[in-house]
């Protein structure tokens, strides 16, 4: 999946949380600005690993070591913005 529509990315991320990680939450209940772990969606450690692995596969991107940080995974908003930028960069590289 290569898309650079932020709305679609957010929706895809929420679907991953609900369907791939089997988190007991509805897509509609996940707010764009809430934390993905502490006090928010509540992804546990194993779910976080799976989340990263699935994102890399679905969006055909790779997180660098320094990119795996608490600020980036603070919310769907932050993450979608980051993925959007990565995908855009990828598309430019492919078109060159």
């Amino acid at each position, binding site marked *: 999946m290569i898309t650079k529509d932020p709305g679609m990315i957010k929706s895809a991320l929420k679907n991953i949380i609900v369907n791939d990680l089997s988190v007991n939450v509805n897509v509609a209940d996940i707010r764009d600005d809430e934390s993905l772990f502490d006090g928010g969606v509540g992804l546990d450690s194993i779910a976080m690993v799976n989340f*990263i692995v699935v994102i890399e596969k679905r969006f055909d991107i790779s997180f660098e*070591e320094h990119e*795996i940080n608490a600020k980036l995974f603070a919310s769907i908003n932050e993450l979608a913005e980051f993925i959007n930028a990565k995908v855009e960069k990828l598309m430019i590289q492919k078109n060159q």
Partner: protein
Amino acid sequence: MNRNYFLRFLDEARGDNLLSDEREKISYSDLPGMLKGVDRVFEENDKADIYCVGVLVENSLSLVMVLLYLLRERINFFLLPANSPVHQSMPFFCDVILSFDPPSYESTRPDPGIRLTPNPRFTRPANGVSGRSGSVFFTSSGTSGLPKYILFTAENLIRNAENWLERFGIFYSSRVLIPVPVGHMYGLGVGLLPALLKGASISLIEKNNVVKFFDRMAEFAPEVVLVTPALCKMILLLDKPLSKKALFISAGEMIQPDTLRRFKDKYGDIVNLYGCTEQGAIATTVPESLSGSDGTDWRFKPLENVIVQIDGGGQGEICCRHNAGFEWYVDTQGDIMPGADSTVVFRTKDMGLDKGDHFFEVLGRLDHFVNRFGYLVSLDEVEKSLESLFADISKAVVFIGDAQDGFTGHLIAICELAEGRTLTEGDVKAICRDSMQKYHVPDEFHFLAAIPKLNSGKVDRAYVTDYYRTFINNKFI
């Protein structure tokens, strides 16, 4: 260590090294002022009358300050691990419960952000330690029977930490990352206290996950990192490089050699720690940087001041004589339980193998071994065989049934099935007979949709044996 020693340690804590958690950073030179803030809260709550403080543990700087304060003042305290239900888990012998303000609270140091509330269930022990005796209570990691608590003296807790320093030499210049709970002996005795005693830089992570872990590894660049086998596996699964290698200490179940090798190649030296709450750290494997070995050595070497003996010679129960072990077990009322004498050799209930030259190997829990047809059988090994042989078995728990007429070592396997899968006892037994040694094949199989886990992540073995007992009782009604 006495009160004067500790006061001196705090007085000398003037360095610029930082202590950090997910909310804030302070330097060692801030500590004396902050301890005054903690003291104000205690003075307002009749400090002199407190018998034992039940501390709701979190990995935060506020907790560090509280621990230092309680140790310095020799106030008894109990560490309640995070996520434990307070009202069910707080023992009767705690008269005061100490909690921390939530993360949303805007900290204005030196306000320590702590609250003291009375424990409505408190009863003063009839046969317990006295107040202000510098006693530290931990939850026992036992999985069955009535709850009991492990009592350390503050002095032995510090001595225990010093043993660790002698093995791995944390220095003033060291940077120590602690993503494991400091309410347990591992995080406290191997991570927090040794690092504090040396005035090293410390970073704490609360409710660790891989994102927080990688974040802090990059930002803090630690030299020593405490991990669990589960975290190691998750780090390997993510398969990301780290810009700086570190020494990783792992406790809990043993990390298998192939995992150990892959981890070491990618992230740095890693050692397995062997210990328990009653004794703290007992032994470690030796890292490549110190031993010159290939870094996947399974052998444990006891820490200085700790003597390990294998009962009966070559193979038997691991026994330990520790210079800084626990003092007593106490019950939920705080009364000292008879029978436990910390001055004699401590029996770990683990099976070990003497490897010579003071090295030993840990084979598993003693009650996980049984003699069958003249062979010593490890139940852990049988469980692993079943899980690897059958893709449809997600978890197997094997235990020894009550001795029945005509034979001993009757093995029962309770298996958790993968979602939507079914198996029959006959089919499973037939495959086992073809693929496993005769003495490894369980006599009975039972299949469950799910086997509950404890808060520690370990399988609830008490549930499994209760399930079997109920099954047997119903069968003969």
